[in-house]
Structure formats: structure tokens, C-alpha cells
């Protein structure tokens, strides 16, 4: 495959591009779902193609193709060059890339069991077993369970001499029970709306214990129909699991993508309040809040040896002892904050997409509290762990998140189930109200598999690990 990649590199070098790279990607994905005792999705997909980036007189061009022969690769390289020339005619300042040494390497996701070697029969048996349990109650109107596996084989080559081969693996499972009556719809998901997937093999599915939890999920979905409405007011909030992962994702992850901070996403998802003059001084959260970006995190959905700039994966503090300490960066933009090396956050979701800055695996470091001790420290509060809806403003300040259910806490004791909990806040005020984080025994990885960004839109994946965390005096509505 590198022989083919070199054809593109030769064309770009001949035409005096400042920089160029090619990614050739061979991907297989399997997606199975069962819905209300019927097959919902049953697909086994393969795709292969390549994408070529060119930097010419400071302007970017990108073109992709799917025919893997020398003629097509060369033609596509020339197309990318033509586009780069057009870009160069509308540039204020020429794009320059931070230095990265050339790498010649192979990397793959560590795993125990290849999910593509597990028999389809076994996978379907699991999904139908879950479905049987979920649909045992007629008040469940919609029972949905799925398994998804993706294996991505990438070859990367650049005009700087890098040649990197990687094999990445994704395995995930999920189900949801939806109950309804004349006036409402309620749902419970397992393990959570955004969770259930990791960068590992079939062992992820085995560890989830999906069948074992199905009865509980069904019963909770039904119980929500008659549960009381979540009260409104100011309360203490314990966030955990899937919901804390989303909180990190939306209010820290996106806010600290440097391209967004600099304004390059303004036309779509917006920009960020965490502007560069705040770096090193802005109190993003309380002193116990440490949020770390990590492209090397074992099992992380964004874990790989190298990003799509050919930069070796790294680990760094985005928030350190509550202070804004860093951003997600790539080779193009890291220089704008005086950094000489990229934090390896440039990723594309397919061969036909251009790499852009993406949230890395971004995790809240554990604290030193016991979880039960945190609950005992709440006089009037609520525990939320499974996300249902999410919305945040275009500078990542005003957010509103809804959860599937909540458990009230009164005088240190868990008091009861409530439905339709929603909480709202302003990002730095919220993170500064964090006064306790549970210890490492509770620290777990949660994956987000549907992060959308860019134009054309790309979907990316990453993990947010955390232990439960407590936030004081949060506005809980409806």
C-alpha cells in the first residue's frame, strides 16, 4: 500500500507543494440491531479509498477517491493541488505546520478477541435475549438493542517521509427500553445514551453484562411512567457515568478545541468562551478539577499511535487544578498559542474527509472521596447518570442537559426515583461549584461515538473517563 501512497507523494513533490499527505483506509464495520423482536439493522460493510491533502503557497486543498491504482491516485493528487491553488488566492497569512519528525511505524489497538471472528449467531442470540426481557412488559412500546464493530486499517504517508500503518478497533453494545402512555414517553438505556463502546475487542461486550441488566432497565423504564416529576429549584447535583461524560464533552471538550477557539468553526457550531488570553490564568473549575487529554489511554475510542497529521499521540492537562492549561491542537494551529508541537488531535472520520481538530480522550481525574460519603454530604440534591437530551450555546457557556431519570437525595439518603430531570448552568460557574470527586476505585471509561463537527459534517469518537462528581447549588428545572 505504501507503494501506491508514494505515487501521490511524488506528484506533490514534483509540483513543489510545501506539504502533502495521503491516507489510504480499508474499513470494515458490522452493525446489528433488534427492534421489537424483529431485525432492525443487519449490515456488514466494507469501504476502501484514499484522501490527499496538499499545502501549496499556504493554502489547503483536499481531494479523495476510491479507485486504488496509480493513475487515479495521481489524478486525485493533482485535483487536490488545483484546489490548494484556489485556496492560496484567498489567504491572509500562509499556513505553516509545526515540526514533527518523520515516523516509520506500525501501531494497532490491543485486544483479546477479534469481534469479527465471533459468530453472527452468538451476536444475534444475545440481542434477541435482551429483546425478550425488554418486551416482557406490554408498557414497553419500543425495545431496541444493537452491537457495532469497526476495524480500520490505515496507511499514512507524507512528503516529510512519514509512513505509518495502523489498525484500529471499535466494539460497542447498547440497548434502550421506551415506555409510553397517553401523556408521556419515558426511556431507560444501557449502559447509557452515548456509552457502551470502547477501543477494544469482543471483551467489551462480555464486560458490559448486557443481558444481566435488561430486567432492571425494563423495570426502571416502566417505573418512570408513574414516578413523580423532578422538582424544580436549586439543588446539589451528583453526576456520574454517561451524563458526566457528556458534561465533560460539551462544556470542556468542544470549548477547548483550538480551531474553534480561534473562530474556524464559527459558521457551524460556533466558537468558544475559552479564548487564548485565558490560557494559564482562567479559573475554569474548582481546584480539585483536573481534566486530561490523552491519545494513549488504553481502551479509548480516540486512542491511536498517531493522528492524521502523523503526530505521535500525547497526554496533557487541559485543565490543571482548575486553571485552563491547554487545548486540543493540531500542527496547523498549535503555533498560534506559542506551542512548538501539536497535541495530536487531528482526525478524519473517513478517507473522504479532511482531518480536523477533534476532542481527544478527555477525562476528569479521580479525587479522594468515597462515593457514599459524597451522597451523605448532600442535604437536598439529585443523582443523575444517563443522558437523554443536550443543548449548549455557541460559545459553550449556557448549557441545558436532560436525563432519563434522577434519584433524589434528602439528608444524605437516596430518597426516590423522579422523571424528566433537566439541569442548566453556565460552564465556568458550574465547574467551579465542583466540591468533591470520587476516588480511583470508581473511575471508568465512557465512550461518545456520535460527536459531530465540521463542514461537511464529520462524526468522531472519543472517551471521557471519570469518577462521580458533586456540584453544589445547580439549577434543576422541570
Amino acid at each position, binding site marked *: 500500500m505504501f507503494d501506491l501512497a508514494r505515487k501521490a507523494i511524488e506528484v506533490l513533490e514534483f509540483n513543489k507543494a510545501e506539504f502533502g499527505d495521503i491516507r489510504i483506509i480499508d474499513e470494515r464495520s458490522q452493525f446489528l*440491531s433488534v427492534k421489537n423482536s*424483529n*431485525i*432492525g*439493522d*443487519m449490515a*456488514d*460493510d*466494507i469501504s*476502501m479509498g484514499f484522501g490527499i491533502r496538499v499545502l501549496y503557497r499556504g*493554502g489547503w*486543498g*483536499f*481531494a*479523495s477517491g*476510491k479507485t486504488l491504482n496509480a493513475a487515479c491516485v495521481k489524478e486525485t493528487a493533482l485535483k*487536490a493541488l*488545483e*484546489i490548494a*491553488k*484556489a*485556496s492560496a488566492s*484567498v*489567504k*491572509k497569512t500562509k499556513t505553516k505546520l509545526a515540526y514533527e519528525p518523520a515516523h516509520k511505524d506500525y501501531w494497532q489497538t490491543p485486544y483479546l478477541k477479534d469481534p469479527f471472528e465471533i459468530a*453472527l*449467531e452468538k451476536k*444475534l442470540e444475545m440481542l*434477541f435475549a435482551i429483546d425478550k426481557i425488554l418486551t416482557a412488559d406490554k408498557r414497553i*412500546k*419500543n425495545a431496541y438493542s444493537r452491537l457495532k464493530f469497526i476495524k480500520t486499517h490505515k496507511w499514512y504517508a507524507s512528503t516529510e517521509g512519514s509512513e505509518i500503518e495502523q489498525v484500529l478497533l471499535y466494539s460497542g453494545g447498547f440497548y434502550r427500553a*421506551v415506555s*409510553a402512555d*397517553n*401523556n408521556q*414517553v419515558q426511556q431507560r438505556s444501557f449502559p447509557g445514551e452515548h456509552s457502551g463502546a470502547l477501543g477494544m475487542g469482543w471483551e467489551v461486550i462480555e464486560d458490559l453484562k448486557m443481558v444481566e441488566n435488561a430486567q432492571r432497565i425494563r423495570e426502571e423504564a416502566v417505573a418512570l411512567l408513574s414516578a413523580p416529576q423532578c422538582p424544580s429549584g436549586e439543588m446539589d447535583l451528583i453526576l456520574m457515568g454517561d451524563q458526566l461524560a457528556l458534561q465533560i464533552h460539551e462544556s470542556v471538550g468542544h470549548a477547548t478545541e483550538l480551531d474553534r477557539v480561534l473562530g*474556524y*468553526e*464559527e*459558521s457551524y457550531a*460556533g466558537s468558544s468562551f475559552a479564548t487564548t488570553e485565558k490560557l494559564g490564568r482562567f479559573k475554569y473549575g474548582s481546584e480539585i478539577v483536573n481534566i486530561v487529554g490523552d491519545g494513549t489511554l488504553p481502551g479509548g475510542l480516540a486512542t491511536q499511535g498517531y493522528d492524521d497529521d502523523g503526530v505521535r499521540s500525547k497526554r496533557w492537562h487541559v485543565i490543571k487544578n482548575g486553571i485552563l492549561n491547554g487545548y486540543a491542537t493540531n500542527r496547523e494551529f498549535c503555533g498560534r498559542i506559542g506551542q512548538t508541537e501539536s497535541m495530536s488531535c487531528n482526525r478524519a472520520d473517513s478517507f473522504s474527509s*479532511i482531518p*480536523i481538530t477533534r476532542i481527544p480522550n478527555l477525562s476528569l481525574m479521580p479525587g479522594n472521596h468515597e462515593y457514599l460519603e459524597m451522597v451523605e454530604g448532600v442535604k437536598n440534591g439529585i443523582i443523575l447518570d444517563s443522558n*437523554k*437530551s*443536550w*443543548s449548549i*450555546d*455557541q*460559545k459553550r457557556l*449556557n448549557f*441545558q442537559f*436532560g436525563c432519563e431519570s434522577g434519584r433524589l437525595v434528602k439528608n444524605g439518603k437516596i430518597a426516590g426515583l423522579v422523571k424528566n430531570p*433537566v439541569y*442548566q448552568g*453556565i460552564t465556568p460557574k458550574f465547574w467551579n461549584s465542583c466540591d468533591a470527586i470520587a476516588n480511583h476505585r470508581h473511575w471508568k471509561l465512557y465512550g461518545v461515538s456520535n460527536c459531530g463537527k465540521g*463542514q*461537511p459534517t464529520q462524526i468522531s469518537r472519543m472517551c471521557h473517563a471519570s469518577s462521580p462528581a458533586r456540584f453544589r447549588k445547580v439549577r434543576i*428545572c*422541570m
Partner: protein
Amino acid sequence: MKKNIEKIFRHAEGMACEVIFFRAKNALTRIGDNEISQNVFSDNEYADVRVQKDGKNFKFSLNKFDDESLKNAFNNAFISLKYMKKEKDFLPLIKTSVRINSQRLHDAETAGLSADFRAQKAKKLTAYCAKKGLTAYGIISNGSSEVIIANTSGVYQRALETALEYEVTVKCGSGYGAAAGYSNNMDLDFDAINATAIKKAEMSKNPIEIKPGKYTVVLEPQPANELLSFMGYYGFAGQAYVEKRSFVSENLGKKMFPDFINVTDNALDGAAASMPFDFEGWPKEKVELIANGVVKNIVTDRNVAKKTGFRYTGHSLPQPNSYGPMPMNIEMKPGGTSLEKMVKNCEYGLLITQFHYTNCLKPKTIEMTGMTRNGTFLIKDGKISKAVKNLRFTHSAIDAFKNIEAVGDKAEVFGGYFGKSACPALVVKDFNFSSGTQF
């Protein structure tokens, strides 16, 4: 493509087989900080292949059509089918004698626009903004797509379409303004879009803070379309009706909205027209969703039609799927009130340019949340008075529809997660804003 489809059918070795073939060529030039920040082109094609045997479906998709790739994919399918059980609601592949070759939404000039064309448009905007101390962001995108749906029962439908999109956001100090246009051909007024975004940005400087609460709102087409799209997705999708997740489940045939509210799903010849057949190859029908304020119909696929006894309206997504049928070409019939008149008639309210990051809190009541963006203005005594800081709304789309006081005279077209929609501006009373933000 036809040769590849025939090849696929040969490899199916007599099994019932359906192919959904997609080919798309798309180019997009992105503007950021008064320069071209990204510039991309992609040319891809792939086929979704479904095979059926003994009451079971298996699907795969691929973008390589050489004999070896097809042989491997089909072998995998044959083996997989052996492990599967017969499906409860299995339906064989569709048959229809109707042949559709839709090309009226394809324009060769639009398909062939060059990187230089897009760069020139970008240059005009960015040069002006740089001169005036403004900052421009946005996209110019053009592309063509081809969809063919064919099966071994003789179905063969084809649709070609082109698209040209231009979106502009302008920053003027603390103010932001935006405007956009979408067309199937070259009929897009780039200068007018630039002028609108710039004017809104200039008017949006130094916004004041107002208290959250209920306001009469004049919703420009984009925010109005957000409400319309959510109504379609959560209300009129057939599967949601069957499972009682939709408000329509208890209200079919009831008059819920003002007389002048008319919403149709029209893939054939309406403002939001596109592919005139569904993903099984069945011709789409125009479906009245709301007629004179009465909740009239849902959209169906064969499964939902069978369960409800309603007519099959041709709204199937690729089968099998877990979503059920979706309205993908929703349009609201324009009324007689211009946007200018809507503002003039408003004693006290808000003019909203955009809704941002909308989501649904409660599907049954379609309670939504989202932020205002890129131009939010206080209206007093029929005039735009001041720019205001952005607000979060939390409101039921159903309640909003019940409170529509006027419908605009011109619909704008938008792309969404499931197809297109066309919506005019709306005036809605008592629209609830639950909180505000700092800008």
C-alpha cells in the same frame, strides 16, 4: 452503475436482491477569519445490498465492485443468513411497474462549478469584510448526487440532483449576523446573502440583556423550520404513531391548530422536493400532515401500513431499519404576511434570526430546547429597537404551533437529517425563554 448492479445481481445466485446505489461528487470551500480555511472535494460511490432468503434479510455495503470483493461479500451474506431466524414481520422485495428517472432537480452547471468559482465568491465577501473591519465565516458548497434503487423483482428507479449552498456568518465587534441560501441550481443571490449577514452583524453590536420569560416571537424561516422539522420527525413518523410515542397517536383527525396551518410532505413538486420514490423504490405520495389546522395523516412504509391499515405512502427508509418511515420533504404552505409586516404588526416581541443546537426534551409533547443566535432583536411598537443577548428557549413545538398568529409569504428551503424542508417565517405568541447567556 447499471453494469455494477447487474454484476451484483449475478453474484446473488438467484436470491432476491435489492441494491441502493449512491454516487456523490461534492466540493466545499470553507471560510474562516476572512480567508479560505478548508477546501475539499470528494467523489465516492457505494452500494447498499440487501439479500433475502427464507424470510430473512441480510445487508452489506461496499464501494468495491470487482468480482473478488463481491464474491467475498456474498459468501459472508450466505453464511450469515444460515444463522438467522425467520423475521416476524418479514416482507418480500417490492414490485412495481412504475419506472422513475427523475432529473428535473439536476443542473449541469451547478454540478461542474470549479474551485476557482468558489474562491471568487469567497474573495468578494472576505475582501469587503476585511476592508470594513468585519470578519467573515461560512461555506460555499456544490455537488451532485445520483441514487438508483433496483431489485431482482424488476424495480429500477433513478434520481439525479444537484445542490448549491451558501452560508455566511459575519462578526462585527460584539455582534454576529448570519444568512444562507440553498438551491438545486445557480439561482442563488450571493450578494443579497452577504448583505443580510453584514447588516444583521452591524445591528447586533452591544446587545442588551433582557429577562427570560414569554414573548411574542417573529421567527425567521430558519428557526421556524426547526419547529416544523421536529413536528415532522416526532409527530408524523409512522413508527412513532404505532408505538404511541407521537402526539398524533391520540389526535388523528382532530383540529389542533389554527385554520391557516397547512403542512404537507411533498417529494414530487413542492419547494422541498427531492427523490420522488422511497428507499424500497415505491413512488412517493404527497401526504397532507396538517390540513386547515386538522391533524390529517402520518407517513407510512409497508410495515406501518400493514399494522395500521393506512395506505402505504412511499416513505420507507432503507430496509430493514429501526426508525420506521419518515417525512423527508416537509413544507408549510406560505401565508400572506411579509416579514416586514410581521415586525410592523408586533407591539412588543423578539425577532429571531436563528435557533442553535436544538434538542427534544419530551417526545410526546415535542418539548424542545435551543439557543437563539446570529441576530436577536427586541421589537417595540412595530420597529426593531435593540439587539439583545442570546436566550435559551424551552417550549413545546405543539404549543408553539397552536399559538401561531401569522405565516410568512415566502418559504425558504433547508436540508436536515432526514431530507429537506421548506418553511416560511412565523409569528408565535407566548413563546417561552427559560434562561439567557452572556453574549
